[in-house]
């Protein structure tokens, strides 16, 4: 099993000014999620908007499944009112935030945003009306293995991925690139059910023999479908790698560290 980069960390979704939606941490039911939102996505370009001004609220709307009740919150500035917010397409700088608790029975996270412009027109940021839909990849998908098999007799290697997935998942594909070789471009291939199951009873899916350069390192992410809806698992933006790098082997932590941590009340 390939452990997720930020396993166990709280979920955070950043909506960047260049219209990416970046999920990091464990997005799953019965946990909180913080939405980070760049207002440039929704404020009309000709409007003189003051970042963080509570009199001009941007509303985050969420649903936890199609047809389920909607809840909403005003996005707030944790960093005060800013006259000249920084443009940062990575979403690390000036963003508004809101925090929601995902209920235990949530099926997915559906998000959209609204803003009443000074002109009186209501603006939406809703993925062209489809709304932004996030699956709970931490629960839905586990990448069990990813390999690049090389045969010295051939100039190519074979890339393979094996995944365990909830039974509600209808289809899975892998999108991959070769690290350090921009000429390879990106490719996407479907995985197939093997008919086998893991210890938790989840179906095993796999794809193998995908041709890549000899002894290449492959970077990939997983797409999967539930109810016809596509969701993404890109390991919190880190992407998965094949073959897996050697894990970092740290010496065990000193006993006094554990004692001090436990003693802290």
């Amino acid at each position, binding site marked *: 099993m390939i452990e997720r980069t930020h396993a166990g960390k709280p979920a955070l979704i950043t909506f960047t000014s260049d219209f990416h939606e970046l999920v990091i941490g464990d997005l799953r039911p019965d946990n909180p999620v913080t939405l980070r939102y760049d207002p440039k996505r929704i404020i009309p370009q000709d409007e003189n908007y003051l970042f963080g001004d509570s009199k001009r609220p941007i509303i985050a709307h969420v649903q936890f499944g199609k047809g389920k009740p909607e809840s909403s919150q005003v996005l707030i500035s944790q960093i*005060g009112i800013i006259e000249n917010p920084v443009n940062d397409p990575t979403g690390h700088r000036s963003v508004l935030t809101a925090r929601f608790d995902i209920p235990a029975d949530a099926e997915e996270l559906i998000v959209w945003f609204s803003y009443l412009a000074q002109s009186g027109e209501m603006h939406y940021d809703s993925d062209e009306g489809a709304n932004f839909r996030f699956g709970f990849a931490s629960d839905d998908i586990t990448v069990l293995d990813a390999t690049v098999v090389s045969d010295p007799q051939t100039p190519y290697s074979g890339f393979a991925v094996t995944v365990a997935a909830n039974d509600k998942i209808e289809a899975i594909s892998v999108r991959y690139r070769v690290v350090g070789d921009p000429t390879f471009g990106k490719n996407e291939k479907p995985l197939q059910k093997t008919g086998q199951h893991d210890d938790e009873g989840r179906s095993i899916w796999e794809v193998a023999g995908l041709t890549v350069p000899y002894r290449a390192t492959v970077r990939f992410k997983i797409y999967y479908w539930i109810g016809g809806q596509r969701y993404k698992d890109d390991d919190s933006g880190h992407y998965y790698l094949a073959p897996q790098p050697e894990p970092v082997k740290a010496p065990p*932590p000193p006993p006094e560290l554990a004692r001090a941590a436990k003693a802290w009340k």
Partner: protein
Amino acid sequence: MSIPFVTVRNFTPNYGDWTPLGAITSVNQTGNVFTLALAGGCTLQISFLSASCFRVRFNPTSGADYSVETSSAVVTRALGSVNLTIIQNTPQALIIDTGAMQVHIDLQPYRIRVFRGSQLISADEPTYNLVYIPGQRVIANFKTRPDGALYCGFGEKAGAQLAKNLFTMTQFNYDNFLYTNAPLPPGNQAGPLNPSEALYCSVPFLIEINRSPGGDFAGPAYCYGLFFDNPAQSYFNMGSNDYSIMDGKYYFGALFGDLDYYFFLGDQVVDVLGQYTTLTGRGPNAPDYSGLMPPKYVFGYHQGGYGYYDRNILEGVANAYRNSQIPCDGLHIDVDFQDNYRTFTHSEIKFPNPKDMMDSLHAQGFKCSTNITPLLTSNVFDENGQQPPYTQMQAILQMGGLIYDTRAGQGPNPNLFVGAVSYGSNPGTNPYHYPPLVPNQYGVTPLGASGYYPDLGRAAVRAVWGQQYAHLVNDIGMDMIWQDMTCPALAGPPEVADPQWGPVKTFPLDLMVDNGVTYVPDAVCHNEYVLFLLRGTWDGLNTLRPGVRNFIIARGGYAGMQRYAALWTGDSGSSWDFLSINLPEVLNLGLSGVPITGCDIGGFGNDSGCVPYANGAPGDGGSPPYVVNGEIQGGVCDYELLTRWMQLGSFLPWYRNHYNGYTKQFQEPYRYGEPVPTHCRKYVELRYRMLQIYYDAMYEWTQTGMPIARALFLNDPADPQVYNHLNDQFFVGKDILVAPILFQAESLPNPIQPVRTIYLPAGSNWYAFKDNQAPLDSPITGGQTLQGVFAGLDEVPIYIRAGAILPMRSMVEQYVGQLARNPLDIAIYPGPDDDYTLYQDDGITTQAVTQNAYRTTRISHRAVPDGTSVQLQRLHNAYTPPEPFYYLRLLATAQPSTVTIGSAPVSNVGSAAALATATSDAYFWDNTLQATVIKVFDTAADVTITALFGS
């Protein structure tokens, strides 16, 4: 256990469940230490470090052990002799006389007051003073804020005012890009004008100055310093009624740790600074070379750029500086230098054969730094997409020196803590690869890395950390280290430190780290991580390269950082607001014990003072950069702002232009059209000719703690008017008053005249600085405000105190040491007798400390009948400068009748040209400048030059 960041409005010792200490049940004295017992089992300790310094320490847990010292800021507590006289020791009060002050400790209930003679100097609030919440760790102390008292210091703080009266501030090291990225109370205006912003460097030290005390404090002027030695998030509310009534009082406090503060009494501010910097480290007697004079080139001009991403660009900048004849000493190369963000490495693709490159730059007179962050990347790929070992990370990993993901209140975790750092994004200007990162569909690549952090509170980890500089220092010849992301700055993973405020961009505050004594949550020692980092770097550099003065320029610090590093004030933006805070920020850092500081000239990031991109989009950072053929088009700092900033920076200790080349087209002054290069060159050249003055002022700091750049009251404390002119004029050293233009004028849509008022302190006469281009005007009597002083874009108003002695260099150098000989030209301004200490050494080796190889010379001038006499007396004489002679320039004189050196008459050679070629002592009278210029061969340890002007 989640531990939150707490904004200034949510730290509320003036409200809620806080309780004062109350009655003291007993007092126990051991030597100079008094232990006061409280009814609940807690104790408080008061100890005396000198006749003018005492320390108060309180931990709100029963049975606290005060024998354990955890401070990383303090280097010595032996500040002077202590001879205490107990005036009273009763159940009601303990009164202790130190000889310099009386400390009254009321016991029923507890309260401390300090008297100088019969004059009250400092007082706790009567009953509600030292407060805490039983069962918690929070502590605070309320003191009376007398009318008329000014408060300054506080380390690195935003705001356009030097005095921070009525503001509330927090000390919490934070990566606060453009000063708009740290949590603030709702409704607060973010940005450089708000002192409540958490910034990169925390020095919880204040100075109270009371020039005309009244009421209970009536008496002569006084000042005192208060150092709250607590590296947790701490607070100073200097009278802000933000959540409660704070009229007539102030408080300081913290979320964790001891209420541990030092009180320094002084008649003058420099008395306080001397004590504080002795406590936290200053001068060649400080341990491990800390406090050593920096390399002389540090006081030259520097240029940095995020986006100097390959050798061609860097060498192009170097060549352009030399071709443009704008002097420059330092080039600062960002993380672009590294092999795919592997700290301590270089990129062989981008900077091939770096030793050869560095040798070439050295031959041109440049010294270089590169960026070293505490993050050790976990990215297995190098820049080629291969996976070679990352030896520097492995060295620290294998000795168990990386921080584990162990959290307060939880069990052990064998996993390492993984954080991330953001380096912004590459809009398509940088063609190199950073595997596995790839551009998005718009051609933009987010830049950054994830990785591990060294646990630098452990001495053994610091030692291994320091060894990792070997490649940069010994193999490549890197001169300086640029220590960045020191808070440390994190971009992820998402640590929801506070349900209300969300992620805080540094270590999770419950992450267990070593504080030098034991493991504690980061929240307890957050602000001193940078101090451990700087110490590890400093010790490493000195081990790897002994014999040479090393230098660190850091973005962040804690009290005591001056032992290891200089500071730049973080990621400023190109705006007039940032220019307006540059001066008070640097002055306050000087008043916090940090002598070498400065702002990124022109602003690092894009802000309101940037011109639009070439496609018409605003260039202020609110729009993506406009890129054509791999180059940003526009978004540069406005020409007037850049020029005024280059002028101000010329007079501040750290003089570096630095910018983000991924969002701005350029910021080097030579890239602008005329007259910008000419105007900037003028003040860079002046900086180089004044370099000896900065060097001497630095030496003075090592002896006294007196800053290089000084608020007016440091030199003229007796003049009550100077306290009204603290924000936009200042001194370099003792006698050079600088009044820069810090506001927009000619580039406004409706231009205004660049005119300002200037206050000239009372008690001295003043001369407008003419830089030997014209004879002096008549002196101006001090104690008056000049109205409507015009300063065109090529001018900075400068005034020189009558009687001043200014050792300038005769010639402009393109870098320090370009000329084998550059004689001093020592200007003597007419006026009262005065003296000056000149410090000379080789400027680069450690011999000044290890072999005492330096020279100090006292230059003094005094009036004699019909003339002036100048004495140069070597006080310490173990270094010989390369120049065989120097010039004395007596300004505003008639033609002398005689000039003698000792008793020997000196001949008048009649012209500057003849004087230049004279091979023995000589002089001439410059009729145009009305100055007597004397060439003195530097052969005598004690020489007196006399010029008489009688008929």
